[in-house]
């Protein structure tokens, strides 16, 4: 079963613009993670935010978490063509030791 749901499902922007993607989930979590997947490749971990954190930064990435709304957002600033990929949010459902992934969001950054 899918826990997270990314929104929008697809986004196309120009290089240099910011990209925001949202994730909603259903049950309590200990942490929420964002992953990137280039076409036909494995998943690459981007950033993790714990349930007691509200915002976290890593380079051009900014993630927020609102546990009251069971939602998270990932902001990629000053996007590059190389950011073109699918992005997934994943949560540890009920604090379990396994990640449950959303359906993903396809980001296209046009040069």
């Amino acid at each position, binding site marked *: 079963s899918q826990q997270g749901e990314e929104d929008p499902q697809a986004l196309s922007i120009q290089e240099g613009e910011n990209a925001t993607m949202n994730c909603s989930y259903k049950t309590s979590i200990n942490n929420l993670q964002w992953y990137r997947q280039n076409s036909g490749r494995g998943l690459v971990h981007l950033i993790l935010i714990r349930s007691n954190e509200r915002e976290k930064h890593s380079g051009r990435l900014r993630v927020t978490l609102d546990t009251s709304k069971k939602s998270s957002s990932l902001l990629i600033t000053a996007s590059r063509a190389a950011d073109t990929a699918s992005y997934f949010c994943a949560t540890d459902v009920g604090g379990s*030791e396994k990640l449950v992934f959303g359906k993903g969001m396809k980001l296209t950054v046009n040069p």
Partner: protein
Amino acid sequence: EAGVAQSPRYKIIEKRQSVAFWCNPISGHATLYWYQQILGQGPKLLIQFQNNGVVDDSQLPKDRFSAERLKGVDSTLKIQPAKLEDSAVYLCASSLTGTLGYTFGSGTRLTVV
């Protein structure tokens, strides 16, 4: 450190044939996961091992899928017999501590024709 190794990279088989995938996790990672990712969808957990014991296989279609992790290191996932709907990328991941430090392999892309 070396990453999670998976083989083969690609596999094409006919329906009703059998196939096996191999995964070697990061050294020292006690937990190993197999995920199935159908095109256009997110990865779905098939089975979770802790050392050589199964923790969760609730979503593994046990009539045709089997997995083992002998000696608590590398693992194999087998499908027998394969169906068309098994066409997907099979991803292996390992972690040192629960969901922290999850590392994925590059996956095996299976096409069943």
